[in-house]
Every structure is written in C-alpha cells, then in structure tokens.
C-alpha cells in the first residue's frame, strides 16, 4: 500500500496552449478511495494517466510510496489500472488474462494458478476462467479487469471510469461491489469519473477538477455542502445549486433548501427530517413565479423565477419531496423561503467563495 502524491504536476499537449493538467498538487491518504470528478475534458484522465506513467508530465513530480517515479515506466510503478473499456486481451482466455501481469512480471509459474484462483474467487468469476473475453457480459468483463488488476497485489489502484460502459441497473450493483471490494482489499485507490453520484457514493474524498485545475478537494459532504467556487456548486447536485447575482456578489442556495413558506408554518404535510433541519431561522422570504414542474416520483422539481426585489426575474429551482402534495399553478406567484444559513456567497469576478454578507432581498 502506498500514498500517491503529485507536486505542481502540469501536462501541456500543445505548445502555447492551456495545459490539460495545470499545476496539480495533491496527496492521497493511506488506503483511501480518492475520486477525480470533473466534466469531460477537465484533465482528470490525463492526470490519472500521468500517475500511471502512460503520459509524460511536462513539469512537476509524481511520488508513489514516497519516492519520485517520474522516470519509471508504468510496469515499474507497482500500480494496477482498470480502463474504461476494460482492455481485456481478446486473444487470451480469462485465466490467461488474469495471469498476464504475473507472467509479464516474471512471477514463477507454479504460483500462477493459486493467485489467479484467489483473484477470481474474490470477484466470483471462477467459472469463467476458460472463456474468451468476447463471450462475457459487460459486468463479467469488468470483474475480469478487476481480477487482473488485483492479482499481483499492487500498491495503488487506478480506475478510469470503469462503470461507464454498464447499463444503469448494473452500474448500481457494480458500484456497490467496487465499494465492498475496496473495503476488503484496502489498497489506495484513485477513481476517475464524470458521474457525481458515483463520486459521492464511493469516494472517501473527491477531487473536483475543471480545465485541468483542481477546484476543490474534500469529503463528499464538504464539496456538496461547502462548494469552494461556483463551478463546484453547479457541477455537484442535480438540479445544481441556484445562483443569483447582484452587484459584486453571487448568492447560492441548494434547491432542496428552497421551499414554500407554508412548509415552515407547518400547514402542509412535510417529511420530518426536512422540518427538523430547517426549523431554525431566520428565513429569507422569496416570491416564486412558478414556470413548470417535474414530477420524478420521489421528488418534485419546481422551476420558476424570482418575483420582486433586486433578484427579480432570476431563474431558480426548488426541489421538494413528493410527499408534499401542495399544488402549484403555473404562472402563479407563491411565497417561498430559504434559510439564511444555507446561503453561500461567491465573488462575482473570480467565482470563489467569499464571506457571508447581508443582501437585501426586497
């Protein structure tokens, strides 16, 4: 097991252009599940590939287990990587696929079978060993790729969007399996994804990236509840955080913290947790002109714009539990409110978090 560290790591693909990865410095914890989260083109995969040794950094250092590995080839870094496409070797059976790293690294042949069976057993693919990759389903392929990664007991796991090729249902179960797997192996893992749900569910910490830069590093709760800038605020959460601007400041609040005043007064049936969390005031009353509403089964998403006051006309979204059956007529103005302690303030020019200030809403 080992700690991965990057120091001022930069990768520029084309001279004179903005780097795919810009001055990234981060350190994993021992045995941590660290997630790189960002939209496509944010540099997360490039960063991972540099850690793997598949891309050469333009500048900066990579350390694995305390020593600089910049000059080491991938095979010397004691890492294992699972690729987005799984990259199973098509001409080899599952057994040979899993045994491949052992063979390539010169592990004595008599140990192969034992190790392969251990890895296959851990992932429940013992009965597939004689098949070829093309005869496997997506989930089975993913497990073979994982088995191939663990078989030589690497210091670090690198996973590059391993779930993105699975259908939604399989993805949920594979996610759970990966979590359990990490729990039992306990190896430091770096996981790249663009899916915030995966990141929130699996990550011990999340590294949110955009345009090759780290925007925030923190636990799922930290990045969700206390986003460091407007990018993180809007990238995490579905629907994203409401951002309304005025003068030099942008005010943000989560859609789930924005609900009808009647809820506060206890006049409508609302779920207990929500009431408990938001019982404390003071509240900012906001008039909402309702645009349209989406009913999503477990929740209702109400789209509209602020009516009156300095923020008049700004589009905002409210996310309500569908146990709240209060009807909203489209076009009508309803009294909504948001708790003051749930307001986040961002500097308009930099997008960075600033100190709370009082804002006139009326």
């Amino acid at each position, binding site marked *: 097991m080992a700690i991965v560290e990057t120091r001022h790591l930069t990768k520029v693909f084309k001279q004179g252009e903005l780097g795919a990865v810009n001055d990234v410095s981060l350190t994993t914890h021992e045995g941590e599940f660290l997630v790189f989260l960002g939209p496509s083109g944010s540099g997360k995969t490039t960063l991972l*590939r540099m850690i793997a040794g598949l891309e050469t950094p333009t500048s900066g250092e990579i350390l694995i287990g305390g020593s600089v590995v910049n000059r080491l080839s991938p*095979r010397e870094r004691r890492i294992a*990587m699972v*690729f987005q496409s799984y*990259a199973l*070797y*098509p001409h080899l059976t599952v057994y040979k696929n899993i045994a491949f*790293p052992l063979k390539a690294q010169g592990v004595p042949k008599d140990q192969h079978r034992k190790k392969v069976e251990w890895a296959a057993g851990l992932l429940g693919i013992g009965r597939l060993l004689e098949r*070829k990759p093309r005869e496997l389903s997506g989930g089975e392929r993913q497990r073979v790729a994982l088995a191939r990664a663990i078989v030589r007991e690497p210091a670090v796991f690198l996973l590059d969007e391993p779930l993105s090729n699975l259908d939604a249902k399989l993805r949920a179960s594979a996610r759970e399996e990966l979590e359990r797997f990490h729990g039992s192996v306990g190896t430091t893992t770096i996981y790249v994804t663009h899916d915030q749900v995966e990141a929130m569910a699996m990550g011990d910490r999340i590294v949110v990236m955009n345009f090759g830069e780290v925007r925030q590093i923190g636990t799922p709760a930290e990045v969700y509840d206390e986003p460091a800038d407007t990018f993180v605020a809007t990238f995490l959460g579905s629907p994203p955080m409401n951002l309304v601007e005025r003068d030099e400041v942008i005010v943000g609040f989560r859609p789930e913290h924005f609900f009808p005043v009647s809820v506060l007064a206890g006049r409508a049936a609302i779920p207990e947790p929500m009431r408990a969390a938001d019982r404390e005031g003071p509240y900012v009353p906001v008039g909402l002109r309702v645009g349209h509403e989406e009913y999503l089964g477990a929740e209702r998403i109400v789209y509209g714009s602020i009516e009156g006051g300095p923020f008049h006309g700004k589009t905002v979204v409210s996310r309500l539990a569908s146990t709240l059956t209060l009807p909203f007529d489209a076009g009508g103005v309803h009294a909504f409110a948001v708790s003051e302690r749930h307001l986040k303030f961002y500097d308009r020019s930099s997008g960075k978090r600033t100190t709370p200030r009082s804002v006139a809403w009326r």
Partner: protein
Amino acid sequence: MLIASFKQNIDLYTVENNPFKFNLPPTLEHIRFLFTQTRFVRWLGNTALVGAIVVVITLLLAVPAAYALTRLTGRWGQRLGIAIFLTYLIPPTLLFIPLSRVVALLGLQDSIYSLVLVYPSMTIPFSIWLLMGFFKSIPRELEDAAMVDGLTRFGAFLKMVVPISVSGILTVVIFSFTLVTQEFVYALTFISPEANQMVGVGVPIFLVRGDVYYWGALMAACLIASLPIGIVYNLFLDRFISGFTVGSVK
C-alpha cells in the same frame, strides 16, 4: 486448366471436340515434358526462395513501420502512411528502367537477388498501408494495459499487437508472396539466364516458342504453380474474415 493439363495434343487441337471432357484418354505427357524438358522445378524453387525472402523483408520493415506510423507520430503518421501508399501506385513499367540501372550498379543483374531487392519496394508500401488499418483498429488501451501489467512498449507490441493482428500479417504474407509469383516486368527485364528465371517468366518464355504454344504444358505449369497459394488461401480464409478483436473492448 485441369483438363487441358492432361489432354493429349490431338484432343486439345481438334476444334469439334467438347473442351470440357476427355475425348481421348488422358495423358501425363505434358507434366513429364514440363519436368524433364524445361527447368520448371528450378523456377519453382527460385520463386519460392525469392518469395520467402521478400516476405521476411516485408514483415521486418512493414510491421514496425506501420505500428510507428499509427501510434507514435500522431496526425502526421496518417498522412505519411498515405504518402507511402502513393508510391505503390507508380507502375513497374515506369520504374524498371531506373531500377535496372540500380540493379546493374550493384552487380545483381541476372541474379534472383535483384528481385529480392526490387520487390519489397512494391510489397512494403502496400503492406504498411494495410497493416496501419489493422493496428488502428486495435484500441490503444490494450497496449496501455499491457504496459501497466508489466511489459515494455516493445513487449506490448510483440505480445499484444502482433498476435491480435495476426490476420493482417497473414494477409501481408500472402499478398507479398502472390505478388512475387505473378510479377512479370521486373522478372523479365532483370534476369535472362534460364536457370535463374522465376516461374511467372520462365513458363511463358520457354513454353511459347515463336508462335507455337505448348498449351498442355503451360496449363500444367500454371496449375502446379497456383496450387500452393490456393491451398494457403483456403486454409486461412476464416482468419481473414474473423472479427478477431470483438469483445476485447466495448
């Protein structure tokens, strides 16, 4: 071809006879003529030797070149590949005059090694182009995975790329070999001694004397020369059309 090889000459030349059956008893006369009165066996041997050497040279140069062009040079690789392919389009009838100077300069005239020198100039460009197509269809992640798993880049190339593109490599082998057996212009211009002829030139030169065509022997020669290639083609047919990489990546 099969029937004509074993027909008696009288049978062959009688216009009223049905050409698709033996009107007179079949004969081995033409085969015997081919093997005793001409140096057909020697020609076959020359062709096989030149073919083998050319195939080896082609593979040694085209496989790494195609790999490098697909993988390492980015956007220019593709253009360079096309440029190389374009050289293949220059017809031998244009090139044989300058090339004969080269051959003479190297003292290779009348030697089969003149052909060993010249043929790769036709086989390599086409093979590079063909192999580039195969290598491009191999996902890069496979090599990345192999390198993370403990191979060097060269190791990944040998153990991943080559086995997966085996059908492409076989195609190159057969293409190069076929080209050697059927090429005419260079083989005709660079080599005159009877003993050093290739089968494709020796047969028409020595079995067509003036306006006398030894049809039976000609057909027999063609049949024998084309059999091995026909067999090889059929053996590897499934390899050519098999979707070999299906299932490795999604």
